[in-house]
């Protein structure tokens, strides 16, 4: 969540509610559960960590609003996050692509390709183990599960590549 919010701020300084709206747009029905509180808690933590700055902007007849902007440290963290090939949830990678495209931080197709190579390498390691593991062992069952999951992830990355290739 922190990384996603930072990456969205790389496009332009924003209010909390704008960030939430952009997250919800990218997530569609999956974003329904995202409440405003989560975004503000994240922004406060990021401010304490020195990754974003908050500026009060006065409004007529209303309380001030805060506009958040990335600091140099924040920007470095965004770059590190984009380069990180740790594989977590599809929604996180999806938001990485959306944020990278919106802020023109990186070509989503390149990010997908780097991630695809990484998962293929892992699958290669798993397959090496699978081919020497005797059938029917407990470890073979685990290997099968990991293989199926990596295969599904790689298929989804192909879909990501097609989607962003058309857009780019």
């Amino acid at each position, binding site marked *: 969540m922190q990384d996603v919010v930072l990456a969205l701020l790389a496009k332009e300084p924003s209010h909390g509610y704008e960030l939430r709206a952009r997250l919800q747009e990218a997530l569609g029905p999956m974003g329904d559960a995202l409440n405003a509180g989560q975004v503000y808690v994240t922004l406060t933590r990021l401010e304490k960590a020195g990754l974003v700055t908050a500026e009060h902007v006065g409004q007529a007849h209303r309380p001030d609003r805060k506009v958040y902007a990335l600091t140099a440290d924040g920007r470095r963290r965004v770059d590190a996050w984009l380069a990180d090939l*740790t*594989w*977590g949830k599809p929604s996180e990678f999806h938001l990485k692509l959306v944020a990278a495209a919106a802020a023109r931080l990186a070509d989503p197709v390149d990010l997908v*390709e780097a991630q*695809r*190579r990484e998962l*293929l*390498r*892992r*699958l*290669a*390691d*798993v*397959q*090496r*183990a*699978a*081919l020497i593991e005797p*059938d029917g062992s407990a470890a073979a069952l685990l290997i*099968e599960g*990991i*293989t199926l*999951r*990596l*295969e599904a992830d*790689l*298929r989804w990355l*192909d879909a990501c590549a097609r989607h962003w290739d058309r857009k780019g």
Partner: protein
Amino acid sequence: MAILRACGLRKEYGRGTGLVRAVDHVDLDVEAGETVAIVGPSGCGKSTLLHLLGGLERPTGGELRLADRRIDRMSETELARLRRQAIGFVFQAFQLVDELTALENVELPALLAGAGPRVARRRAVELLERVGLADRAAHLPAALSGGQRQRVAVARALVGRPYVVLADEPTGNLDSAATTEVLRLFAALRADGQTLLLVTHESRVAATADRVITMRDGALVGQTNLAGAGGGLGAFAGLEG
């Protein structure tokens, strides 16, 4: 040394507005002993490329060398001999002769290549053993499982001691367990130094190669090196959670 070498290889079908560049200026070096996988969306030209490399089809342009011999401008007769002796093919649908036993299927290409019956028989027996099917020698294909049929087909491909085995979706008709059987066989062949080029849409199969090449619209557009890949099994940990 590259055993198989393609340079600017092209294959076009049709003409004018109907022109299809099925293979579009492909440069490819396959080293002796290497296993290379080619992946890419349906219709991107994988099978056409494999057919060109194996001399089943003639290129529109470009150069092709197998073990340092130009094969793109060989005569039909020379090419036919080359296909029997220097190249092994494995297909998705096995393409065994239904009326022949496993053993006869394997010895057939040796006989066609002019080997004497006893030599051909000895070679076929040896290869069925190699693929773990010595006890199925007298079975007709119909009496074999998919994985076993494909192993017979691999044995047949090896009869001429080919420089390279070309496999087009070799696990495309197989379930997971039979796929594992065939992949184990490929791993054993590779340990013996057999050069192998396979086309597949299954990432699990591609992941067993030394190199995975991505093809799109007739061209090779990317490559992932897997020889000595990754962080070993520790990489599993990163998958959890």
